[in-house]
């Protein structure tokens, strides 16, 4: 057994053990912290699978923002911590057996995967030069499967509309009630002053480098959202009311521009979301830049939750 496989074996064991602990843990907050650890371990696994783009997304969204969202909810639901009626033994055994069966079936699928594996990598690489991008994953996201990427942005906006629609009538258009886990203390305020300049630069770099190296709009946007949330949590800035025009504009500018570029494709390249030859990269970079901004604001507001207090006139 070589060193790399031994490392992977340890990583896999740790990953499954912590996933099991996440499910079994008593306290909600403990379970969420374990989930966060699992998200970071998963990011290492993605690097081991040569998928650095996914590793960045997993670390930023899967481990980071999702955990932050869940921690906020757990803090709010603290009084419901104790489990009133533990599940019956028969239910546990039946569910355990069924889930083991599902896992065994999936493991068998992995075991019997066809060899050689089918792949689209040669096709993806063959046409990558025409897009002017150097990162094949960005090529798939913004050229070959651009419609998926566009719809995904719309899903993010729809989720935000769904979250906002849960506001009480009197709070509509007001300020989201971003949950505070800790009173802003000097360390939090210090970090919120120190980190954002660096973080904003990292976020912009991730988007810019995403064209030719691992990175991209999602990852960069998530870093921007994290920096914004840090500033909001430290109360260095107020959470904006959702009815402010600039908030609405930032939310939609990315998807709207992407759709506009899509329709431009009809005029200049005879298909929706087709790029005219030679202009693929500039158009993709413009779309990505605005999307990064929109994703950052959307993710931040998704974490902040539905509006709770009326806008002060």
């Amino acid at each position, binding site marked *: 057994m070589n060193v790399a*496989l031994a490392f*992977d074996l340890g990583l*896999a064991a740790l990953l*499954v053990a912590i*996933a099991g602990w*996440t*499910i079994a843990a008593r306290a*909600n907050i403990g379970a969420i912290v374990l*989930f966060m650890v699992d*998200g970071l371990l998963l990011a290492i*696994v993605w690097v*081991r*699978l*040569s*998928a650095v*783009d*996914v590793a960045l*997304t*997993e670390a930023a*969204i*899967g481990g980071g923002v*999702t955990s932050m*969202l*869940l921690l*906020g*909810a757990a803090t709010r*639901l603290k009084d*419901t911590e104790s*489990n*009133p009626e533990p*599940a019956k033994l028969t239910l*546990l055994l039946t*569910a355990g057996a*069924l*889930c083991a069966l599902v*896992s065994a079936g999936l*493991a068998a699928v*992995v075991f019997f*995967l066809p060899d050689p*594996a089918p*792949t*689209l*990598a040669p096709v*993806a*690489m063959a046409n990558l030069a025409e897009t002017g991008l150097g990162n094949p*994953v960005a*090529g*798939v*996201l913004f050229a070959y499967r651009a419609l*998926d990427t566009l719809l*995904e942005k719309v*899903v993010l906006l729809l989720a935000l509309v769904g*979250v906002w629609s*849960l506001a009480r009538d009197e709070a509509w258009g007001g300020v989201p009630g971003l949950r505070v886990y800790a009173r802003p203390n000097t360390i939090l305020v210090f970090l919120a002053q120190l980190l954002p300049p660096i973080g904003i630069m990292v976020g912009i770099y991730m988007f810019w480098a995403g064209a030719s190296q691992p990175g*991209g709009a999602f990852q960069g946007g998530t870093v921007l959202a994290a920096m914004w949330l840090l500033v909001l949590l430290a109360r260095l800035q107020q959470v904006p009311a959702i009815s402010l025009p600039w908030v609405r504009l930032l939310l939609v500018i990315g998807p709207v521009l992407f759709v506009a570029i899509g329709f431009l494709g009809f005029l200049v390249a005879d298909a929706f979301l087709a790029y005219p030859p030679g202009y693929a990269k500039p158009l993709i970079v413009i779309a990505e830049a605005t999307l990064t901004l929109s994703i950052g604001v959307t*993710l931040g507001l*998704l*974490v902040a*939750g*539905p509006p709770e207090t009326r806008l002060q006139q």
Partner: protein
Amino acid sequence: MTSATLFGYCGAAMVGLGLFGLITNPHVLRKILAFNVLGAGVFLMFGVIARRGAAAGLGGDPVPQALVITGIVVAFSATALAVALLVRLHSETGQTTVSSEDPPSSSGQGVRS
């Protein structure tokens, strides 16, 4: 056994664990958490298929990798909506569990047939 296959088994185990938590834990927040563990397992299996498709000088097939990135973002959107629904459920009824039994009619407005 290659590392990719090993992580494939790992993903299969995570799907099972997440499904178990989803079924057995009555607290909705824990169900959402378990659902995310399940999703992470599915994404991991996707990543294994991408890794096995390594060709043309790439470490993995970029198409499944791009789909996973899209999937992670959509999973986050769904989680955010589910959490908002749960918080609203709690503020309306004080409940954080879903059970097959009749909910307590504390609000007094429930329409019973």
